[in-house]
């Protein structure tokens, strides 16, 4: 998960930062832990989490497209 985030954002989160985020997401019921596979402990999005992520991505897309449009006309 650390490497995945590093590839996506260019910055690898430390274990403390990562598990701080996981704990908050779990508390808000946006993700849930799946059964352990070998030594891996996978998490998955809940339905609530998927809806929240969808809304957040739409918001980001709106902000990004608006910003790019205004930058082009400036």
């Amino acid at each position: 998960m650390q490497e995945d985030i590093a590839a996506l954002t260019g910055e690898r989160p430390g274990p403390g930062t990562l598990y701080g985020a996981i704990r908050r997401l779990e508390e808000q019921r946006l993700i849930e832990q799946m059964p352990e596979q070998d030594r891996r402990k996978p998490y998955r999005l809940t339905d609530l989490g998927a809806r929240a992520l969808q809304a957040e991505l739409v918001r980001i897309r709106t902000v990004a497209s608006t910003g790019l449009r205004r930058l082009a006309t400036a």
Partner: protein
Amino acid sequence: MRATVIRLVMALYPAPVRDRYGAELTDLLAHSTRPWRDAVDVGRCALADRAATWTWARSRPQLLRLAWLAAAPLGFGLAALVVAVGVVGIVTAWVEDGGYETAGAAPYAGRDASAIVRDGIAGNLSPAVSPAAFSVSILLSMLAVCGMIAALTLLVAPRHHLVAPVLTLPASLTVGILAIANLPIVGDVLGQTRSATVLSALCWCAAMLTLGVVITVLIRQGHTRIAVAVLVIGGLATLELTSALYASAARPAAADGVSAFSVWPLSIGGFADPSRISTDTLGSLPAMLTMCTTFALTRVAAIAVHQRKARFLKSQKPTTRSQHA
């Protein structure tokens, strides 16, 4: 080394977070390619979590325990004084019966033992009570109190949970010693030179911290005999060092001609020649540090043994369950 660092940073997390994510975080830290950076990240996040979940109600029992620990040096001092008064009373009665009369009539007849202890500390002891008899009484009293401290600590210590005892124990006791050192009259009994007392107490705290870590690690690894040897030798070396440091800081000129290793054993019973070592300035600090050392090291060792037993029992549980299955 890495395992110790991981244990330390994991101990910073609030217990519920540690119970829920401890195994995963430990696994990530153990296999990290940047262990120090990740350990700092975990430590920072653990402290942030602890600050976010801090409540007065939850912290009150721990703070009360630390306050009791800070008050412990005062309790040790009072206990030593009471026992010393008792022992000197017995010695005085013996002197009055003619068992150890050195000159003239018994001037302490009809007076309480606390007056003799007071005169003995002030150096105005009557010839009827030999200074050696007084010194032996004080030394025996202190040894008796140390024995009682060790016995009570072994009996009670594992029952009371203490956060990071290796750190909080010497730190709280040092706060207590420094508080006594700054009291108007009692502070002078502890040590006449305040700056030297502070230096000696801080040095003692650092030594106890180091010894505590070493003893805990040795006990966890199963080297109990080596841990006991480190406890005894390290404890004595700490007392030597802190007493010599005090003597050097308080009276640098007086300490020149004296072996540093003679300061503690001589001063603890008041045997030293005041013109050479000037134990007057040392006061009761060596005795106080001896009692605090006994308490701190015994308690750290008892907690480490208790934790090792608990870990062993925990590791046995799944085996028992699988055997039943």
